[in-house]
């Protein structure tokens, strides 16, 4: 079918206001927060209900047009980038919190609800939504589910997967299913668990029951300053190894401190080479003692200063600086490439050393703002996109960070997902058998590769091909040789 027919039919399903077809307007949708790849969508639709999503999916399925789901477009791995064109399905008009069930600690949300707004909505009931990505004032819960998003407080409260009780989703044949409602011991394969983190490739989430977390009675925050990142990283490793249970452990290095200092007037000393943000929460009793024990670890590792943030206002200022550090990077360079890998926490000091080496070798500054408590690194490679050589070196530096992380027993993504950014690194981590099992799962849901095709799996090793290998019983090497 031609494009104008497609647009016509889509308008019939979602109404004229729900279709974006103007070429200039479409440019807004050519990438998400990952600027390395772009693609032009044929059309963008903004459905307002699960039924409309189903209608769009049926149409796309009939004509074999790929569907690319999109939340707020804050993703950093190209998950919402329409690399092969197709229909971008935006959740922007599905942005309501439908029900807050305080007695059962859950909320029913549409996928376009902003993460931060959900936490604000449930606050009067004494709850929060614990997953808190740095982009929480913009990102949507649907996107959080797609990428199993993290955030600083995942250290204590777990990633998004631990906070999704069940979803309503549209399958590639247009059928609408519910995978759960918060019942604590459901029977059957854990569809809720597999849709979370599946990056929009097996189903489109149209509503979700999310688990709410009680607001803690008390929160304490301190900022420990170190001459260099080694002391901060060593402190984190030791805090974890000593068996403390902080709510968050975040590190910012010298470059990041410089950026947020200028922007938020934090007044941090220029000689600070790293800041470690420690948060503890829970009942008030014992928190000071816990914090004192952790700051002792910091002093032992050569801290220059430990500054408590006592009032909620002070705490908010520190957190705002941390969460907006990426935005502040604009003061340092025209473009940045934000890398996301994870290493075992004891390997953090060594890995940070290697990141420093990679920065020197590729002659590009790298700032670091990261979830140290989880071992989740975020080297921010600063460069100028208009300079071809810098572009190339930035990509090479990112690859080097991934290699180091894997060598240290880590993985290639902690919270951003694979998307298109990292699909070709999957083979560094997974064998053909591992990928084939993932492909098997994918095929059970989406045999015709309608949803977000060309993502997650390595290029040239599509899920269809991998699943076919599997079905053909392409045997385990040991058996072949017998």
């Amino acid at each position, binding site marked *: 079918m031609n494009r104008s027919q497609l647009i016509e039919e889509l308008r019939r399903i979602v109404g004229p206001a729900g279709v974006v077809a103007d070429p200039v307007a479409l440019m807004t949708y050519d990438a998400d927060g990952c600027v390395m790849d772009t693609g032009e969508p044929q059309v963008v639709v903004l459905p307002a209900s699960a039924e409309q999503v189903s209608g769009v999916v049926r149409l796309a399925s009939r004509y074999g047009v790929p569907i690319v789901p999109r939340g707020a477009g804050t993703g950093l791995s190209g998950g919402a980038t329409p690399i092969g064109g197709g229909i971008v399905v935006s959740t922007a008009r599905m942005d309501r919190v439908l029900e807050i069930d305080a007695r*059962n*600690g859950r909320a029913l949300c549409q996928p376009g609800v902003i993460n931060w707004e959900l936490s604000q909505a449930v606050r009067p009931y*004494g709850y929060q939504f614990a997953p808190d990505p740095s982009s929480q004032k913009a990102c949507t819960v649907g996107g959080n589910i797609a990428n*199993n998003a993290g955030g600083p407080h995942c250290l204590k409260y*777990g*990633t998004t997967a631990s906070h999704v009780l069940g979803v309503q989703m549209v*399958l590639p044949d247009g059928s609408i*299913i*519910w*995978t759960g409602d*918060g019942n*604590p*011991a*459901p*029977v*059957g*394969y*854990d*569809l809720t*668990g*597999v849709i979370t*983190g599946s990056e929009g490739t097996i189903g489109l989430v149209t509503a979700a029951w999310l688990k709410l977390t009680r*607001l*803690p009675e008390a929160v304490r925050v301190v900022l420990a300053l170190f001459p260099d990142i080694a002391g901060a990283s060593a402190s984190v490793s030791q805090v*974890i*190894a*000593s*068996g403390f*249970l902080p709510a968050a452990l975040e590190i910012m290095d010298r470059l990041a401190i410089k950026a947020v200092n200028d922007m938020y007037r934090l007044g941090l000393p220029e000689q600070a080479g790293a800041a470690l943000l420690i948060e503890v929460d*829970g*009942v008030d*009793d*014992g928190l000071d003692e816990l914090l004192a024990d952790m700051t002792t670890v910091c002093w032992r590792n050569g801290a220059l200063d430990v500054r408590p943030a006592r009032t909620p206002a002070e705490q908010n200022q520190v957190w705002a600086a941390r969460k907006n550090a990426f935005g502040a990077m604009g003061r340092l360079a025209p473009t940045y490439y934000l890398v996301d890998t994870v*290493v*075992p*926490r*004891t390997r953090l000091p060594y890995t940070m050393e290697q990141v420093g080496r990679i920065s020197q070798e590729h002659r590009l500054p790298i700032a670091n703002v990261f*979830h140290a408590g989880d*071992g989740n690194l975020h080297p921010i490679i600063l460069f100028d996109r208009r300079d071809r050589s810098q572009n190339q070196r930035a990509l090479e530096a990112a690859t080097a960070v991934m290699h180091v992380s894997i060598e240290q*027993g880590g*993985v*290639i993504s*902690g*919270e951003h997902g694979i998307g298109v950014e*990292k699909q070709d690194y999957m083979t560094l981590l*997974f*064998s053909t*058998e*591992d990928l084939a*099992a*993932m492909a*098997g*799962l994918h095929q*059970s849901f989406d045999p015709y590769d309608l949803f977000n095709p060309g993502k997650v799996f390595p290029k040239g090793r599509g899920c269809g091909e991998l699943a076919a290998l599997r*079905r053909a*019983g392409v*045997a*385990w090497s*040991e*058996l072949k040789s017998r």
Partner: protein
Amino acid sequence: MLPASLTRQLAAIVGPDALSEETAPFAVHGRAPALVITPATVEDLARAVAACHAARVPLVPWGGGTRQRWGRPVAAETFVVLRTTGLRSILLHEPDDLTISVEAGMTFAALNAALAAHNQMLPLDPPRPEQSTVGGLLASGADGPRRLAYGTSRDLLIGIRVVEATGRISKAGGMVVKNVSGFDMMKLYLGSLGTLAIIVSANFKLIPRPRAAASLSCFFAQPERAFRLITALSASQLTPAAVEYREDGAAASIEARIEGLPAAVERHVRDVRRMAEEAGAGAVSLAAEGFAEVERRWAGFNDAPQTVDLAADELVARLSCLPGALEAALGDARALAAREGLALRVQARALGGVAYLRLRGGDEALRAWHAAMLARWPHLVVIGAQPALAAELPVWGAALANLDLMRRIKQEFDPENLLNPGRYVV
């Protein structure tokens, strides 16, 4: 009857000592397997699975055998029991990273002993820890009382290795606490009762042992009063590690397990005591103090969900509902048990909505209770019953949704239907 050639092949793979025709102790719902094999390595296990696959002989994966009463009978005339207990090593323990990788046949008692030496724990708390294996707990998706504070295996599992139906080995996840590298296959294998793949090893994030712990017992003359306390606790900002509701006959009690910093534990003991008294508790006592003592006490009543030892007239069910509906659900269970003349014992994760019910009485009465209860509470799973009863009841409850999709998944992972055929929902 097994083809003799397969028996010979399996003997060659696992070694003659790891193959047994003493199969009676390994009966599933009263039917014994043709053969029991206990491979000593993952590779042997994978080869054995491949051999059974080639011969189209179904397999029943078997850890400690503590939850083999779960599910339906094996839908095959002849089957082989595949034990994982030959795989019981710690593969990698990084105490300072708070992560561990263990083989599936390791028991919880052995695992906990290894962790205790490093002041760490994996608070999944299955019944019969000296028998219950890591793989079995994951495959059955069993929960423990401390899920309230630490989550279930779903939250603590960070990596997995499985042998698929054809004998292929694959893995997912890793040894880090945060990971979105590819699909979360772990969730698929968790709780799928070995019908998609056989779990051979698992990686967990660990929890440091708390510096202080206490256990508080609150006794109530009537269940309503106990539920007043439960409602107050769920509305509070307190963070108990576990709150179990127990009912046996007329009396009800609540046991609160508290873990954490010394000052926080003291505060919880104070507050829970006050709240219990306000709710009308007849007596409140500090039943245990210190981690070791609390562990011992809780081990003493963690047997409520066990289905190893089952009286001839006993049925064990797991009820799952939203936390706010627990009082009503238990009220129904109680009233129906009284109507049918059944003895009822209850233990529930009071703030979570999972309850284990043990009933005793005649088959007719158990049938009638089950039918009436299931009509009101669809998430009612029979986890322990005598074979005849288990074979006829809808043991997985009445809330089964999305079976077409689940069949497609089963078809994709086990097209010949050789892994625990018939025992789970598809």
